[in-house]
């Protein structure tokens, strides 16, 4: 079980701020997670399509494509930041 958090535009697009999900055993890193979520259909497929600017943080640290994901992690998906 992992906690997925959606922020800003992605929260609006997905219609939810967070969810807890059981991941299949073969979803072990950020790239695999995004591909798995994109297979849910719209709006996931569109928002998480290759080339779309999606940033990911695992347990509050910015993650890369190969960052591992483990049970109990909090994984946040968000658009590029625009503060300041």
């Amino acid at each position, binding site marked *: 079980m992992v906690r997925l*958090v959606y*922020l*800003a*535009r992605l929260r*609006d697009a997905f219609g939810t701020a967070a969810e807890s999900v059981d991941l299949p055993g073969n979803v072990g890193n950020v790239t695999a997670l995004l591909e798995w979520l994109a297979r849910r259909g719209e709006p996931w497929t569109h928002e998480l399509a290759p080339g779309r*600017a999606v940033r990911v*943080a695992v347990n*509050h*640290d*910015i993650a890369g494509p190969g960052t591992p994901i483990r049970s109990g992690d909090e994984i*946040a998906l*968000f*658009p*590029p*930041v*625009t*503060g*300041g």
Partner: protein
Amino acid sequence: MSVRVQQEDFDVGREIAQLRASTRGVGAVASFVGVVRDLNDAAQIRTLTLEHYPGMTEKALERIVVEARQRWDVYDILVIHRVGVLKPSDQIVLVVVTSAHRGEAFAACEFVMDYLKTRAPFWKKEMTPDGERWVEARASDDEAAARW
């Protein structure tokens, strides 16, 4: 060093005075204040809503400050970033750096802002006469951060 994420406005003069009072030997104070503009991409801005990712935001800001302190010989760094609903001409963000000489203070202040713009989890949503829209990230901000 301190970072604060808050809804309330801040008093630049008071924050600078407090930072100066906490250290002896300060010879330079550089500060940056970000302000809400009334126009963006040709649209009138009624309000700007700042959202963040509680839990990660403070950690990301602290990491930026630590990195600045490793790169430049500065005495102290303060970062305040507001969240919530703001209006044109409201203050959004404050960075203050104290050091012995101006070069370090200027450079560290600019570095903190450039990194904050690309690494701290804040997002802006604008309310315009045509409705709400999320502000898109700018490539120029990535280029500014890449200079360092």
